[in-house]
């Protein structure tokens, strides 16, 4: 099929200049041109590091025959003298969509989301399309080619920018003078990926980035299994994926965080993607470097925001403003850290602005050599085509640029872009520079003439006897035509001048008068004209010539970030009220020493020479608050595209720069479980993290983290409150059977796996089998008693325990059964009445369950409530009369127990992690504040430091506003203000981008 299309494509291009031996010829005789072309006396950049002055470039038949100082010019050569000019290899863009039309969006969906695939014979997910080949959709786009050539490009690697697996890309030369038979350098040059779904299908799965990651992983497992001949059915997608295995694998990640995620997927399968970055890699360049990946880096540096309106500009966030200020340093920082990268025009509105942006990167410290590498040798090497493209070495394609000088200098003119030995003239390099002031005499009158402007758009000014004459000029191919009004201004009469320009200094020709007379015309350029024309000043305005002061990167690179990552300290708190959460209870006038990230001593009259002493008189120290149910610090929450999504994990999508991390710290929270949402009966795996503000996502996760998974019951999983009627289950009856089905299947799967016989690896089944094997714990979103009871009975039948019911608002109705089953309850303090199933939710729930002997926690499920969990615990004193000490355990030791981390955190005990909070008052008083929040001895929140940060943020914003005002006043382009508002992440949150 593909081959046929390819053949048709080739036949259509019958105007080929390249000889095709086996093609018949009917429009003349067959000819073969064996002549050479020699470009002499040029400064030749053979590679970014190998430059020769006065060199010669010899080409024939579209390829380079020789380059350098010692080139013998054969007799059958045409010679082009390039004295004073430079030759560069032309540029390569390896992340292009050139000539490939954007696929069209599938028409609107019906009453319910689409869960099934649209196709058959292919992979079960429509968004996996390795069988697509860009070459099948490729149509040479002359206009786009011209734009790219003007920007210096000669070769692009194009692809279909759609779907999660996008199939193969094609390497094509921007050769407008030949057909596809010559242009196509490699019809299958690379395979492309992304996390974004195809617009061509409305299949729901995956609905999140973590779903995309899980899908890719399962696909690789399936491909391997398919390759071994295990499938009874045909899957053209997997066949194509396997066939594309040895191509370069390019991943369109598009942001720092997604870069890390893409690399993580690849690592599992030994695949090293070449990754498209987002331009924000500088924020955590060490992480970027640690991937060992090579990158494709965009240069779409933002315009300054238009901050003239003082009210509106206040809505700009510091991180958005910093991005504008810092982004141009990205290439430099990558180069300094020896990260290999190529440039791309991707995400630029037009290639026209490409060079200006590269220049900006140079102004911010990138070396010219690295820039040239990123445009030539690096992409060539990444594509495995170093011998063919990206340099001017013998044997490579004759793809090169002729310029007036340094290609990165803004005053340099790019004359010609040669692709495969075919010339495209951008500016005529032989045009003589006739700009300047002239004097001449015609029919007894003296004239003064100034020629100025671009050579291709010359302007004239003529005066005679102190009076200005109207005039027009045209200049091309060494001929100049000038018309000017005659002396008698009442008549509409013109004197015309025509001259052949033989040198840059004299105009020799004829003058034609209104009366038909002809006369010789001779003009001489005056010496010593001022060469800083007004045009130069104008172009100055167009670019930000002076480098702005770059504000420092912080950890994370948003407001309230640390200038340097904070370190653990030895601290001695004196004379505090210490809430141990252990048998010792609440100790008054007590000291506490923390050292090496652990609680070292609790007692009276402690001392330690190396410790920073903190007077805690009148203050209280507790263990850090732990939130069993949180949705902050994550880029996605729900993968609702299937009724089970055990294959996804929140650990894949931790967002390390979420401001709610900081705000939670300000509320005394130190550890949280980020749970998957409640979109499906079997949700995704959790991330249990410490709120180490400033650290990277992966460094926040608990060491040897206990394994958890979210389950959910009730209205959300049966999709009661929105329009969806086609996904099983739609009733609580169906929910039970879904669990029975999955556990039965997982049991069979696990038995087969353990038997040593071949089996199809299934991530989802692996995870569910972990539950059956008691290696993974369930935290189940639950409301009404019937379903709570049901899930315990299902677990009983498979001989394991549910670990936690979260929300569990009718837990009080079945607290005795919960106690018997051994399940804990993590509930809201007082939420109710938002859905029908919480009609009987009561704030006494925690108290009743606690009194029945259930381990009880109070959770948030909410970025606002989570920063006040101390208050939520206090409500248990009001509603049901729980003692203060027990109430406090609801947000510390008990959630630690439920999360199986109580050996490390949750109470104040010597040897446990120094995750502590210093409160200004009683921790459950409405009048208290967290003064210091410490994790493993590191102070991540401090009231005093917070004050300093506020004034620092104010100062930094003022400085950046000022820089933006300066940019605008310079005449630079600006972008309108936007306002960043955080999404409220709850159980039912769905990704915008993916939804």
């Amino acid at each position, binding site marked *: 099929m593909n081959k046929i299309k390819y053949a048709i494509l080739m036949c259509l291009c019958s105007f080929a200049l390249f000889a095709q031996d086996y093609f018949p010829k009917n429009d003349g005789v067959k000819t073969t041109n064996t002549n050479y072309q020699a470009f002499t006396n040029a400064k030749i950049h053979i590679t970014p590091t190998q430059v020769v002055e006065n060199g010669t470039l010899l080409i024939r038949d579209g390829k380079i025959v020789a380059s350098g100082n010692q080139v013998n010019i054969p007799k059958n050569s045409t010679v082009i003298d390039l004295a004073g000019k430079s030759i560069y290899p032309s540029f390569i863009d390896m992340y292009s969509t050139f000539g490939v039309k954007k696929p069209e969006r599938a028409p609107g969906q019906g009453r319910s989301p689409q869960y099934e695939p649209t196709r058959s014979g292919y992979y079960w997910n429509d968004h996996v399309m390795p069988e697509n080949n860009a070459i099948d959709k490729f149509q040479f786009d002359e206009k786009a080619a011209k734009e790219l050539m003007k920007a210096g490009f000669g070769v692009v690697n194009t692809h279909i920018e759609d779907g999660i697996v996008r199939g193969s890309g094609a390497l094509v030369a921007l050769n407008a003078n030949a057909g596809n038979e010559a242009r196509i350098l490699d019809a299958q040059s690379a395979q492309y990926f992304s996390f974004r779904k195809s617009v061509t299908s409305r299949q729901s799965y995956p609905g999140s980035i973590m779903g995309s990651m899980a899908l890719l992983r399962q696909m690789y497992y399936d491909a391997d299994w398919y390759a071994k001949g295990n499938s009874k059915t045909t899957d053209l997608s997997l066949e194509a994926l396997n066939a594309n295995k040895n191509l370069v694998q390019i991943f369109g990640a598009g942001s720092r965080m997604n870069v890390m995620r893409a690399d993580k997927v690849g690592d599992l399968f030994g695949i090293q993607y070449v990754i498209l970055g987002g331009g924000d890699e500088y924020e955590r360049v060490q992480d970027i470097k640690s991937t060992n990946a090579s990158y494709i880096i965009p240069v779409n540096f933002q315009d300054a925001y238009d901050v003239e309106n003082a*009210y*509106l500009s*206040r*809505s700009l*966030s*510091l991180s958005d403003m910093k991005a504008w200020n810092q982004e141009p340093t990205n290439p430099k920082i990558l180069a300094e850290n020896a990260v290999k990268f190529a440039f791309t025009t991707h995400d630029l509105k037009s290639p026209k602005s490409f060079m200006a942006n590269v220049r900006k990167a140079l102004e911010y410290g990138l070396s010219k050599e690295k820039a040239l590498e990123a445009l030539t040798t690096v992409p060539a090497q990444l594509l495995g085509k170093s011998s063919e493209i990206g340099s001017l070495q013998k044997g490579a394609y004759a793809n090169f640029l002729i310029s007036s000088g340094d290609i990165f200098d803004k005053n340099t003119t790019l004359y010609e872009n040669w692709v495969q030995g075919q010339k495209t003239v951008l500016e005529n390099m032989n045009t003589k520079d006739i700009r300047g002031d002239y004097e001449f005499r015609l029919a007894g009158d003296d004239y003064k003439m100034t020629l100025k402007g671009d050579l291709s758009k010359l302007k004239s000014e003529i005066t005679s006897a102190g009076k200005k004459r109207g005039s027009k000029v045209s200049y091309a191919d060494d001929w100049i035509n000038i018309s000017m009004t005659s002396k008698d201004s009442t008549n509409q009469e013109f004197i015309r001048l025509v001259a052949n320009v033989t040198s840059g200094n004299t105009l020799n020709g004829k003058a034609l008068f209104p009366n038909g007379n002809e006369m010789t015309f001779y003009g001489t350029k005056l010496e010593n004209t001022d060469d800083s024309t007004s045009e130069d000043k104008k172009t100055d305005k167009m670019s930000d010539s002076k480098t702005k002061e770059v504000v420092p990167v912080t950890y994370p690179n948003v*407001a309230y970030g640390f200038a340097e990552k904070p370190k653990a300290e030895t601290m001695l708190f004196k004379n505090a009220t210490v809430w141990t959460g252990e048998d010792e209870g609440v100790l008054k006038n007590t000291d506490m020493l923390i050292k090496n990230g652990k609680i070292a001593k609790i007692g009276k009259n402690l001392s330690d020479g190396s410790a920073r002493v903190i007077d805690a008189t009148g203050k209280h120290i507790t263990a850090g608050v732990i939130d069993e149910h949180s949705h902050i610090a994550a880029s996605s929450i729900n993968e609702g595209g299937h009724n089970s999504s055990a294959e996804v994990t929140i650990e894949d999508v931790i967002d390390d720069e979420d*401001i*709610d991390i*900081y*705000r939670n710290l*300000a509320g005394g929270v130190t550890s949280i479980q980020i749970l998957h949402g409640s979109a499906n009966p079997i949700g995704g795996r959790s991330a249990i993290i410490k709120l180490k503000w400033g650290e990277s996502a992966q460094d926040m996760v608990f060491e040897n983290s206990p394994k958890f998974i979210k389950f959910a019951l009730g209205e959300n999983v049966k999709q*009661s*409150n929105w329009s969806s009627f086609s996904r099983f289950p739609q009733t609580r009856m169906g929910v039970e059977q879904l669990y029975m089905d999955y556990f039965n299947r997982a049991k069979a799967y696990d038995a087969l796996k353990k038997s040593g016989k071949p089996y199809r690896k299934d991530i989802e089944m692996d995870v569910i089998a972990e539950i059956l094997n008691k290696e993974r714990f369930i935290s189940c979103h639950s409301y009404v008693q019937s379903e709570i009871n049901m899930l315990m009975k299902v677990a009983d039948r498979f001989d394991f325990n549910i670990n936690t019911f979260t929300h569990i608002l009718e837990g*009080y*109705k079945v*607290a*005795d059964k919960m106690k018997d089953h051994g399940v804990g309850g993590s509930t809201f303090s*007082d*939420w109710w*009445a*938002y*859905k*029908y199933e919480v*009609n*009987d939710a009561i704030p*006494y729930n925690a108290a*009743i369950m606690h*009194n*029945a002997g259930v381990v009880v926690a109070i959770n948030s499920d909410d*970025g*606002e*409530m989570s*920063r*006040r969990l101390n*208050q939520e615990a*206090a*409500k248990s004193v*009001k509603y*049901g009369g729980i003692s*203060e000490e027990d109430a406090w355990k609801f947000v510390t030791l008990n959630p630690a127990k439920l999360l199986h981390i109580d050996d490390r955190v949750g109470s104040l005990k010597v040897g446990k992690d120094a995750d502590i909070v210093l409160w*200004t008052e009683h921790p*459950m*008083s*409405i*009048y208290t*504040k967290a003064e210091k929040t410490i994790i493993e001895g590191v102070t991540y929140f401090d009231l005093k430091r*917070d004050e300093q940060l*506020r004034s620092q943020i104010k100062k930094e*914003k003022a400085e950046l506003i000022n820089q933006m005002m300066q940019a605008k006043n310079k005449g630079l382009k600006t972008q*309108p*203000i*936007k*306002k*960043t*508002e*955080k999404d*409220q992440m709850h159980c039912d949150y769905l990704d*915008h981008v993916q*939804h």
Partner: protein
Amino acid sequence: MKNINIKLIVVALLSISFGFAQQTPASKQSKTIAITGATAHIGNGTVIENSLIVFENGKLINVADMSGVKLDLGKMDVIDATGKHVYPGFIVPNSTLGLVEISAVRATDDDAEIGSWNPHIRSLIAYNAESKIVESMRPNGVLLAQVTPRGGRISGTSSIVQLDAWNWEDAAIKVDDGVHMNWPNNFSRGRWWLGEDPTMKVNKNYNAQVTEVENWFNETKAYINGDKSPKHLPYEGTKGLLDGSKTLYIHVDDEKGITDAVNFSKAYQIKSTVIVGGYEAHKVADLLKRNNIPVLLQRVHTRPSQTDDDYDMPFKLAKLLTDKGVVVALETSGQMERMNSRNLPFYAGTTVAHGLSKAQALQLITQNPAKILGIDDNYGTLEIGKSATLFISEGDALDMRTNILTHAFIDGRLISLETHQTELWKRYSKKLESQD
């Protein structure tokens, strides 16, 4: 047909489960009641330790320091509240209490009418005096509410109710007190489901939308000057704002919007204007003070609206405004606003941790809302001649641990502190105990 059946079933189910749940409203005060020995929080900034509070026929007849008074307590019901605290009933303004029962069940949802210009729409009509959520306010001391419609540019007309009533007529203590308007937003969000960038961008239609508001009032003025025939219900609904009989509540958060709204109010000579929300009101506090415009301040327990804001910004806004002399009361609108309105006292408590005194914090939910809503002749403070709408708490009512009510009175009537929730609590505690 199928849909109708489902609706009928839902309605039937709801009427079964809600029909019998409500506590019986208390009958009129028949005997004089004296509360002795309590710490009385008057609501106007003063506190009387060891107080005597006497009320008769629903009105306070004495509020004093016990040591200074000799009174024959023989004819009265005396409540010894030594060591306890007495507060005026808390007032929740800008509330949808009684308008929605269960957020996700559309059939129970009556808070927003369609259309943009609804001054004639009256919240009181839909107020469900038998709501299970309404009764759950009382055990926390929230005894009065302004019931407010939502939606549109002009949402409708609010009324003020007490929270122990047989029906909406019974409940009303001030009918049609004001009209609520949502001021145009300076920012608008891209519709991501249409492929637009979902970020907040400057609202290009802002000026046009403000002009629409001005036009509405211009048209109303013209209508009033004519023969008013036939009657134009929406203009009739707007009339009270221009003659001063109703308050204009302008819901707006940003500094520019507030400034524009104040100038609008001045230009149209609106006699009584209140800013609702007011996240950035502290930046124009002087303007508000100068024009005697109070603020119903957005829920204290929210996150800062922008990432760079101080983490405690919502906690300290009341302090910032109070220090500048602006009259501030707390409102509770937002996510889960009805059920969470019982946390009103704790919203006030939180402002103390962030700068206000306890007495000032109490004013935010007693005297100040009474003033702003225009019911301070009768409610909001414990002063002689005013309604005996008050409660006794075991301890500090602004702190979760000690907000434990023993008695509550509305207009002197001793109301039930039981709720659907306390009944379930008792029923299931008993069930579990009996198994031991």
